[in-house]
């Protein structure tokens, strides 16, 4: 196995063009586990840690351009206002040590249905900036990014450079069920973001289908119900029947399996509970009765 250490982004793209099977490594959260457990033995590893721009972010007017390697700990500490859903999700990633190394680029590269960032990214709405030496850069909408179990829309010669995430203009929440209170892989997860400017709600579900998904029928139902009731303007409490129906539709969007971490029926149930609760928290927050929702961490 060759360990390639490009010093610049351009070099990295050249390496990837020359060796399309090369596996990029940044924090190593997923890659090192696979190597250590002998699940994967790539011919080439491309170490992206020397490329400083991957560690940077830029807060624009509408979006945050988040470098692929910005560690979760920095997202938690420094982008909480702009990316509250992703910050909450970042809290749930593994251990403090891993949060200091791992970033969103790795999560997207692995494209596991259990990646903690995915539900938050789906709910917030974003585009993944990828680049190849031959064709330059392009933006892949997050809705088109996950193509199968641990598969994504990247071409073999492309690398993930950054994620252009919409800055939060409304409350966002993220919940994850695991069978212990920290450092646990998701049994299932749920992200929600209110987008008052477009009067829409977006969702993201993790670990409950072959890929991370949005609960689109639930979103459509909720968007219509909120519109119809004038909720965005009158700021009324969402009626329990709307919340219940939303939860049921989120639950129905899940297409989980039974595995060693949990049963399919539990996952479906839990997605519904999380959907109902997180909708309540975000909506309460939107109505202005801010109830603190985050750990001090």
């Amino acid at each position, binding site marked *: 196995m060759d360990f390639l250490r490009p010093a610049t982004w351009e070099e990295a793209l050249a390496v990837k063009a020359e060796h399309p099977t090369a596996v990029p490594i940044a924090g190593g959260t997923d890659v090192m586990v696979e190597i250590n457990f002998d699940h994967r033995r790539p011919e080439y590893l491309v170490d992206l840690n020397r490329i400083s721009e991957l560690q940077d972010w830029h807060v624009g007017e509408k979006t945050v351009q988040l470098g692929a390697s910005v560690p979760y700990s920095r997202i938690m500490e420094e982008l909480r206002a702009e990316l509250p859903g992703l910050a909450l999700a970042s809290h749930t990633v593994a251990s403090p040590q891993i949060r200091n190394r791992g970033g969103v680029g790795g999560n997207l590269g692995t494209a596991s249905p259990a990646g903690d960032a995915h539900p938050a990214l789906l709910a917030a709405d974003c585009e993944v900036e990828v680049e190849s030496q031959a064709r330059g850069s392009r933006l892949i909408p997050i809705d088109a990014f996950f193509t199968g179990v641990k598969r994504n829309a990247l071409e073999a010669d492309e690398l993930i450079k950054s994620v252009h995430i919409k800055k939060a203009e409304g409350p966002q929440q993220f919940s994850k069920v695991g069978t212990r*209170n920290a450092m646990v892989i998701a049994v299932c997860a749920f992200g929600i973001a209110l987008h008052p400017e477009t009067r829409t709600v977006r969702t993201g579900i993790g670990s409950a289908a072959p890929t991370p998904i949005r609960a689109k029928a639930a979103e459509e139902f909720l968007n219509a119900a909120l519109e119809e009731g004038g909720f965005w303007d009158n700021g009324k409490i969402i009626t329990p029947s709307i919340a219940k129906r939303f939860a049921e539709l989120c639950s129905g969007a899940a297409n989980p399996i039974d595995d060693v971490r949990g049963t399919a029926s539990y996952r479906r149930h839990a997605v519904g509970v999380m959907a109902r*609760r997180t909708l309540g928290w975000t909506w309460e927050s939107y109505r202005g009765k801010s109830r603190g929702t985050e*750990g001090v961490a």
Partner: protein
Amino acid sequence: MARIMARTTAQSPAGAPTDVTQGSRTKGGVGESTLRPDGTLKVTGEFAYSSDMWHEDMLWGQILRSTVAHAEIVSIDTAEALTVPGVHAVLTHEDLPAARNYGMEFQDTPVLAYGKVRHHGEPVALVAADHPETARRAAAKIKVEYRELPLITDEASATAPDAVLVHEHRADHHAAHVPHPNIVHRQPIIRGNATEAAQRADVIVKGEYTFGMQDQAFLGPESGLAVPAEDGGVDLYVATQWLHSDLQQIAPCLGLPEEKVRMTMAGVGGAFGGREDISMQILASVLALRTGKPVKMVYNRYESFFGHVHRHPAKLSYEHGATRDGKLTHMKCKIVLDGGAYMSSTPSVVGNASSLSVGPYVVDDVEIEAIGLYSNNPPCGAMRGFGAVQACFAYEAQMDKLAAELDMDPVEFRQKNAMEQGTLMPTGQRVDSPAPVAELLRRVKARPLPPEREWESSEGVDVRALPGGLSNTTHGEGVVRGIGYAVGIKNVGFSEGFDDYSTARIRMEVINGEPVATVHTAAAEVGQGGVTIHAQIARTELGVQQVTIAPADTQVGSAGSTSAGRQTYMTGGAIKNSCGIVREKVLEIGRRKFGSYHPAWASAELLLEGGKIVTDGGEVLATLAEVLENEAVEVEQEWRHRPTQPFDLVTGQGDGHVQYSFAAHRAVVEVDTELGLVKVIELACAQDVGKAVNPLSVIGQIQGGTTQGLGVAVMEEIIVDPKTAKVKNPSFTDYLLPTILDTPTIPVDYLELADPNAPYGVRGIGEAPTLSSTPAVLAAIRNATGLELNRTPVRPEHLTGT
């Protein structure tokens, strides 16, 4: 912290207490919280564990393990593996030099599988190469052809009329008395007449309970280094719990006399029973002798899950009766422990489960049966609590059910039936030292409860205080508090007639004018703090400050295992005993040299204090430097606890145990009843420790045992697929251990009620807290949810009915 102090130090011949007793003026002796000598190194990551060893020119050993649970081995083809550059040896059972089997109680475990494999992950072939990666690659090139056999996975398949036998030609000491060859051992206990006594019961409660397979999950994986010696023997450095038991099993497999296998303890990264059986010891030695080079072996985490025995999963059926006024009338139970493919310590686990199945209660009429199965599941053996854990989970659930039936407070009901000193065990053995069961329960109950809704603050919700923690699953919705109690009984030391002893070699000499004691034992320091208390005992007994703890090895007699809560009692006892002999020898020398100078040499009770010989009135007679000069006094002595008896194979009667240990817990939990997530808020423990030789270590042991019990209550389980008998979660991704966010406050209240038979009155402490912690958590979850919950660990599915 309230304690009852017990004075057990030496008294003058006349029986009147004196001003000074041996060790009473020595700093850092028995009863003080001296710090661990290895503590800082371990915390800073500098301690050398067995996996850190290195030797010039060493090779790396790698095991190829079976991919199926039960199969005939049709062929093993090593040709391709041998062609890998860097490979020095590829071995199968055909290459083994001598005995092909090992085992602690009976040698039924193949060093490398021959004929067939009996469980998933059984060692089949072995590679030595100059790099661990090369060894792994080469092992993957070994081709093994299997012809799969039907699987034995539970009691029904094990004892079916046409059941395939896991071991066809049993010749072990239990083969003759078991009802089926797939039953390793059966231990009934019959006392009184349970069926008749049931007539007196106003309420009868029955329950079926399931206990999942727990792993010791020690952090330092199996590892060691075997170095071939010029005399044809081998020097073996390994992390183990019992050097001499290893030695007895290793030497025959190498075809060497025991003196040519020299073992030295390497840094142990936790044990909890999982290092009592052999892991890589024989294999590394075989490779070293074969290649003539040092061979290191280190399991990775995945392999470690296959590299040691686990806690026996169990099915337990219980029936209890009680009168309306809350007195137990009778108990009937059947306990089925799955021992997996090889014997390991299953017979002893069966003996424990059976003899402790009543719990710490007075029940005169019992009908008990415990069996251990042979199956194609992973082998199970020793783990902290050893058979008593499974029983405690079931009988404590029964106590709560009975209390509910009788509309009584669960603590009061237990106290009404609690055993005490003088109570007869179901085996007929009288409990002849303190058994403060009711008092322990009283103490945990009397504690103030932790405040409710601690997650609420002026800042908002602190999710870390809620079920789910930072996963942010609830801000208080669906959260219900529950409280539960449990108490347990564990035997200490090796039982059932086993000749249980330890050996201590003590050397006393003067170096640079300072008296120094050296303590040499073969006792394994597995984290329990032996290295701390051995020095404390030597200080107390010899009145010196400087104590050197020699590395544990086989150049001194056996210390027995660091297990069964026995090492402070046994090796502590051996050190105390040897030190006493050293003291006498030192006094003899003193009398010889200086006896004529002062009448007190002949007439007074003499003590060793502060490097001097003093009278019990405190008068200094001589310094040790003066007495010993260049002479060293050295003593090596075996020391035994009082003998025990085997249990009768039909009635289960017999004075089988040495000592009993008791702990009680109160668990306070908060359950997210909608998501089925649990946060344990507090696990208060009260335990009788006999004598706290090192109070800080005592509290650490109790908190550790409590946490291990919590783990198997809510998350820890090796999941074995019943269709394939394969392990489904051999990783720390899916075998979950409690993190610090899952570990509650654990207030500890310990009593010191001396056991008059034990050195300093000590009572084994490491295991009892592991027993009652699990049922206390389960009781609290039942209290919060109203669910029956007859299985542990509890999973979110069980709490949400999904």
